[in-house]
């Protein structure tokens, strides 16, 4: 077991093999390469992505399918290669990869989800990238409604 300090959760123990490894970090957070996924019974379904090295940094995320049941994944070849996946086809969400969308949560404005840039995790090796789409099919600020977050 390893240990980290989280501003949200305090001191936490975690299994090292549960860590999501971002070889390139995330846009604007290029030095953040390890995140620990945390679930909280009070907010079942919501995934907290806690940075292993920065206590203050904790993203909130939902599975893409919980926000948009029809969500079509589109991961570029460079990102597929970084994940260690076949670069000639799209991976299967749920079976090969976990697809999470990052949320913007604050008290006075609607919660939004970034469908433009989902976090994609290879379930076989825990490698992860934020797969920024180059099309404009999905919004980076998709507003969550009642039927979305289930």
């Amino acid at each position: 077991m390893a240990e980290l300090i989280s501003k949200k959760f305090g001191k936490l123990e975690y299994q090292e093999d549960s860590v999501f490894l971002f070889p390139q970090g995330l846009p604007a957070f290029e030095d953040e390469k390890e995140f620990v996924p945390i679930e909280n019974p009070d907010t079942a379904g919501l995934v907290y992505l806690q940075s292993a090295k920065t206590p203050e940094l904790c993203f909130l995320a939902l599975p893409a399918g919980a926000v948009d049941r029809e969500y079509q994944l589109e991961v570029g070849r460079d990102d597929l290669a970084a994940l260690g996946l076949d670069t000639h086809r799209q991976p299967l969400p749920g079976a090969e990869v976990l697809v999470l969308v990052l949320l913007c949560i604050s008290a006075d404005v609607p919660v939004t989800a970034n469908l433009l840039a989902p976090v994609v995790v290879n379930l076989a090796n825990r490698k992860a990238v934020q797969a920024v789409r180059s099309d404009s099919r999905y919004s980076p600020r998709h507003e969550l409604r009642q039927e979305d977050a289930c």
Partner: protein
Amino acid sequence: MLVLRRRAGESIFLGDDIEIAVLEVNSQGAKLGIRAPRELVILRKELKVAAEQNRAAAVSPGLTEVTEIFRKIQKGS
């Protein structure tokens, strides 16, 4: 927005030291070449949007408030 038509092999200048050349155009898109001072940051737009959105997403309220907001979404109130 200024709109210019350029063919493959042609280029434009922004100021004196930034050159943007159209190298190739096909049904997949246009391949651009950019010559600019090294210190100039050049980003695909979607990466810039993703970076801004990540900075916003990195700021969230404490656990109690997150729980409250999340419950409200689930109830749809």
